[in-house]
C-alpha cells in the first residue's frame, strides 16, 4: 500500500537520525539525579534521628535514676511533714515534763531538721563525714539513702529519740558520724539539761519513749501509705507512656472547611469548553473527585500533665485516598511490557473506570487530651492537636484541560501540610499492662493540597474511628 510505503520510508529515515547532545545535558541530568538521591537520604536520616530521639527520650524518662530523682522530692516533703507531726505528738504526750520535753522537742526538731536537710541534698557534709569511702561508693550510698522512703523516715525518728537517754550517749556518739557535725552540736545542747535530774528524766523519758514509739509506729505506717500514694501520683505524672495509634475512615478533599461538594476547580470551569466557544477544539472538564478510604497509624509518647489532662507527641504514617473516573490507559501499543511512569489516561467517556488517587504522608502529631467528668470506670476523653505532615508519595492524577488527559505530576502538589485533629475516646479495656481507648476521630488539613491543577485550593478532610493502645499502664 502506497500510504504504508511513505510512512515506512519516513520511519526508516527517522530511525537513522542521531544527534549528539551537548555535554551540559548530561551534567544537568547527573545533578538532578544526585539531588534526588540526596533528598531521599535526608528524609531517611531525619526519620532515623526522630525514631532514635523518640526511643532515647522514652528510655531516659523511664530509667530508674530519673524516676528516683523525682521520687526524692516526694520523700523529702513527706519527711518534713512526718517530723512536724511527730513534734506535735511529742508535745501532747509529755505534758508533765515541760522543761525537759520542750527542750527535747526543740532538739529533736533541730536534729531532725538537720537530718532532713542532709537527705534533701547536703551532699557536702555527708561526703565530709565519709572521707575514707571512695567517691563512687559515697554516691551510691547517698542514692540509696535518698531513694528509700522508709530508711529515711526511720532514721529521722531515731534522731529524734536517741539523745534523751543518758545511757545511750555512747550510741549517740557512735551514731554521730553518720549524721554529721550539726547533729552533734544539737546533742551537746540537750545533755546539760538532762544532767540536772537524771532520775526524773528517766521516768519522763520512759513515758515519752513508750508513747513516742507507739505513735511513731502508727505514724510510720500512715506515712508509708501517704508516701506510697504520693510517690505513685508523682511517678505517674512524670512518666511517659508509649502508645500505638490506629485510625481508619473516609478521606476526602474539599474547597472549604467541612464542605465536601467537589466540583471541578475554577481552572476547569472557566475553560472554553464550558463557555461553548470551543471553535472545534475539545477542552473537556475532569470527572468529580470522590471520597475514599484512608488510614493513619503511628506511635506516640503520652504524659499526664495534670490529673485530667495528658499531652502527647509522636510520628504517624497516613494514607488518604480519593477516586475519580478516567478513561482508557495509554499503554495500548503493546510494544513494551514495562510500566510507564506517567501512565496517562484519556477522558474517554466510553468504558470509564474508577481510579484511586493515594497520598502518603509522614506526620508529626502534637496533642492534648482532657478527661470529662470523674467517672473512673468509663472515662471519656476529648483530644485536640496539630499535625505537621509531609507528602512522601502520591499517584494522584492531574488533568490537562487542553488535551483532556489525566496524567501524573506530583510537582503540582504541596509537600508540607499543617493540620488540626480532634476526637473523642473512651477506655474500652484496661489491665496492668495496657489500656485501650476507642472513639471517633477527625482531621482537617489547613494547608492547601495544591496551588494549581486538579487539587487547586483543596483541603483534606478525614472522618473515622480511632483506637489508642497505651502500654505499661499500672
Amino acid at each position: 500500500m502506497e500510504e504504508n510505503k511513505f510512512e515506512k520510508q519516513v520511519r526508516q529515515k527517522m530511525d537513522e537520525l542521531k544527534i549528539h547532545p551537548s555535554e551540559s545535558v548530561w551534567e544537568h541530568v547527573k545533578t538532578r539525579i544526585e539531588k534526588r538521591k540526596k533528598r531521599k537520604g535526608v528524609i531517611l536520616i531525619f526519620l532515623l534521628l526522630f525514631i532514635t530521639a523518640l526511643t532515647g527520650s522514652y528510655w531516659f524518662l523511664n530509667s530508674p535514676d530519673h524516676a528516683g530523682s523525682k521520687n526524692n522530692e516526694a520523700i523529702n516533703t513527706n519527711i518534713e511533714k512526718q517530723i512536724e507531726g511527730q513534734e506535735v505528738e511529742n508535745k501532747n504526750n509529755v505534758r508533765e515534763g515541760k522543761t525537759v520535753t520542750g527542750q527535747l522537742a526543740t532538739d529533736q526538731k533541730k536534729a531532725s531538721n538537720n537530718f532532713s536537710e542532709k537527705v534533701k541534698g547536703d551532699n557536702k557534709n555527708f561526703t565530709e563525714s565519709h572521707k575514707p569511702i571512695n567517691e563512687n561508693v559515697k554516691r551510691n550510698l547517698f542514692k540509696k539513702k535518698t531513694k528509700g522512703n522508709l530508711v529515711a523516715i526511720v532514721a529521722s525518728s531515731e534522731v529524734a529519740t536517741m539523745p534523751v537517754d543518758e545511757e545511750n550517749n555512747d550510741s549517740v556518739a557512735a551514731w554521730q558520724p553518720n549524721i554529721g557535725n550539726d547533729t552533734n552540736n544539737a546533742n551537746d545542747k540537750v545533755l546539760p539539761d538532762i544532767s540536772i535530774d537524771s532520775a526524773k528524766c528517766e521516768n519522763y523519758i520512759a513515758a515519752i519513749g513508750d508513747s513516742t514509739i507507739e505513735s511513731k509506729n502508727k505514724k510510720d505506717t500512715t506515712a508509708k501509705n501517704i508516701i506510697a500514694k504520693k510517690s505513685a501520683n508523682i511517678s505517674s505524672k512524670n512518666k511517659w507512656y508509649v502508645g500505638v495509634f490506629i485510625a481508619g475512615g473516609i478521606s476526602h478533599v474539599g474547597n472549604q472547611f467541612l464542605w465536601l461538594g467537589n466540583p471541578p476547580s475554577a481552572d476547569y470551569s472557566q475553560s472554553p469548553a464550558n463557555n461553548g466557544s470551543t471553535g472545534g477544539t475539545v477542552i473537556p472538564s475532569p470527572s468529580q473527585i470522590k471520597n475514599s478510604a484512608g488510614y493513619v497509624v503511628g506511635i506516640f509518647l503520652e504524659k499526664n500533665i495534670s490529673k485530667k489532662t495528658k499531652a502527647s507527641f509522636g510520628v504517624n504514617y497516613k494514607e488518604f485516598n480519593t477516586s475519580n473516573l478516567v478513561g482508557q490507559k495509554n499503554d495500548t501499543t503493546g510494544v513494551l511490557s514495562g510500566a510507564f511512569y506517567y501512565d496517562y489516561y484519556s477522558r474517554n467517556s466510553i468504558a470509564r473506570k474508577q481510579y484511586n488517587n493515594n497520598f502518603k504522608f509522614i506526620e508529626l502529631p502534637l496533642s492534648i487530651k482532657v478527661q470529662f467528668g470523674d467517672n473512673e470506670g468509663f472515662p471519656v476523653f476529648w483530644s485536640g492537636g496539630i499535625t505537621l505532615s509531609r507528602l512522601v508519595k502520591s499517584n494522584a492524577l492531574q488533568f490537562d484541560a487542553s488535551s483532556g488527559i489525566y496524567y501524573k505530576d506530583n510537582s503540582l502538589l504541596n509537600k508540607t501540610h499543617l493540620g488540626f485533629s480532634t476526637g473523642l475516646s473512651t477506655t474500652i479495656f484496661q489491665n496492668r499492662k495496657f489500656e485501650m481507648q476507642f472513639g471517633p476521630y477527625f482531621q482537617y488539613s489547613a494547608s492547601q493540597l495544591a496551588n494549581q491543577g486538579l487539587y487547586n485550593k483543596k483541603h483534606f478532610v478525614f472522618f473515622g474511628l480511632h483506637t489508642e493502645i497505651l502500654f505499661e499502664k499500672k
Partner: protein
Amino acid sequence: MDYNKLVRDALKLEPEAQRRLYEHFAPVMLGVCFRYTKTTSDAEDVLQDGFVKVFKYLSQYKSEGELGGWIRKIMVNTALNFLKTNKKYQNDLMYNEMTLHPVSTDDPQIQLQAKELSELIRQLPTGYQTIFNLHAVEGYSHVEIGSMLGISDGTSRSQYSRAKSLIIEWIKKNSSQEKHEHYGRK
C-alpha cells in the same frame, strides 16, 4: 551491549552505568526530541527531563521489553507534556477538525537525508507536527492519538492528511530544486 546488566548497575545507582546508559541512548533520543520541538535547545530540555524520568522509573522497566523502545516512549510523552506546558507551543497546538484533503497517491521516493527530513517535519505547525510524528514515525493509530491528545480520531486523521500532503509537497519541491541544481551544474 548487555542491557539487563546495564539496567541492574544503573539501579544500584552506579554513576558509571548511568553515564553509559545515557551515552548509548542519548543521540537517538535527541533525534526523537528534535522532531517534536522547534529548536535544538528545546529538544535538549526535553531530553534532559526525559532522562531524569528514565532514571527515576528505571525500576519499573521490565527486562522482557526492549529498553530502547521503553526510553523512546518516555521521551515521546515527555515531549508531549513539554509542548502542552510550554507557552511558546501552546498557542500553536490547536487540533481543529478540517475537511479531508485528497492525498496524492503519487508518493515520492524520499531522497533526503534523515536530518533534512526532520527539518521539514519541524517546519509544520506544532499540531500537524505532533500528529505526523505520532502516526508516521511512532506508528500510533489515529484512535490512539485521539486518546492521547484528547481529540477525536477524525481530527487526528484530517490533521495527519494535511501534514502529509504538506511534507510531500515540500519533498517534491526539494527534489526538483536538487534536480535543477544538478542539471544546472551539468
